[in-house]
């Protein structure tokens, strides 16, 4: 597959280049692969071990019945007990790490560049993501 010649829409420093072109795609892809593997394991476990439960859950969802919140600890206990639902939920949490990781990398980039307006802006965005999780807990 031929991609167009890589270029930067903003004049890039060497650090920016290395972080953007090398590390960010590598980490993004790794997190994405891990979450896909975990989600796939959850789905395969569902089909093999709890197909009836899945169909039951899906029909309950069609009537708007959600299972409610679970904290990380109970999810991990669920994974240990072989619950496909717990495995899939963990996979979904890993997937939502992707934007967090991307923003965190951007923060590193701006800190290295001593670009403080953008350090503040990136920190605000990162804080918003973390607040999102906390708001969900409180709500």
């Amino acid at each position: 597959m031929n991609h167009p010649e890589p270029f930067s829409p903003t004049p890039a420093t060497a650090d920016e280049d290395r972080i953007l072109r090398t590390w960010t795609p590598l980490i993004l892809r790794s997190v994405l692969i891990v979450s896909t593997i975990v989600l796939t394991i959850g789905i395969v476990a569902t089909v093999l071990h709890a197909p009836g439960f899945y169909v039951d859950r899906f029909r309950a969802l069609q009537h708007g019945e959600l299972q409610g919140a679970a904290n990380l600890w109970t999810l991990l206990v669920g994974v240990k007990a072989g619950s496909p639902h717990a495995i899939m939920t963990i996979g979904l949490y890993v997937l939502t790490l992707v934007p967090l990781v991307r923003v965190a990398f951007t923060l590193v980039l701006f800190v290295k560049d001593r670009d403080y307006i953008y350090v503040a802006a990136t920190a605000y965005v990162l804080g918003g993501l973390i607040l999102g999780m906390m708001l969900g807990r409180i709500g």
Partner: protein
Amino acid sequence: MDASDGMAEASNDAEFPGDCAVLTILGGLFALAILAGFIGALSGLGGGVFIVPGLVILAHVPMQVAVGASLISVVATSAGASVAFVRDGWTNLRVAIILECATVTGALTGAYLAGVISQPILEMLFALMMLQSAYYSITKHGDELLPASDALCERLRLGGEVPGDDGRMTPYGVRNLPGGAVLMVIAGIMSGLLGIGSGALKVAAMDHLMKLPLKVSSATSNFMIGVTAGAGALVFLSRGDVAAAVAAPVAIGVTGGALLGSRILPHANVGALRMLFATVLVLIAVEMGWRALSGI
């Protein structure tokens, strides 16, 4: 959810011998998600705008469940497409981060409001957003570059360079950051509320108002929809409003579809596909609007 779930699932097998049904449901969700991710990445609209109506109309799940699954799928679409976009350097990080401050604020507000707004109103809002996406798809202007940034954008060094027709790097300017930021707050609220990336609104803000080149707008919007949806998804996930049974297969399907779409994007004549996407969007908007009106 507790440790006994594994056993509960196992014991349910005897009552529900659903081997065939489970494959049918999962197969349907996968097919829907792959298509949504592919079209989402190719059109720059994000997968959510197709996933929500797909789940509501075809899979018969309530709006709330569809929104939770869709937010996850928007994160997946953005992540899948971003691997290609980041490597190719189309994303304007400074524009993305400055505008994302406005969008994340809107997304958190929207995700919070989603629990208190009724299904018919959500469906009507969704139909209106789809019409906006369709309108945007068919009214995109040419790709002329702004020669210089206005004072504020210049101070924030928001401009950049893109290759021109002759392959030489051509600088472009950016303007009207405040106007773009206002639209981004609205895009964020819609994103958190409706589980979509609001990609059309974001690209419209960058393309029409701020005069960024189209492909830079698309790639930057792609970065942003992932972050915005991530904020909303975290609210939904930690509140227990994401149904893993639906969201997990949808996330995998959408990621695959988005990867495929983003690889085809540099070679595709996207303009020719826009009219088709716009027609589909209008049809779905009419269907969702009709459902909303009959539910009120």
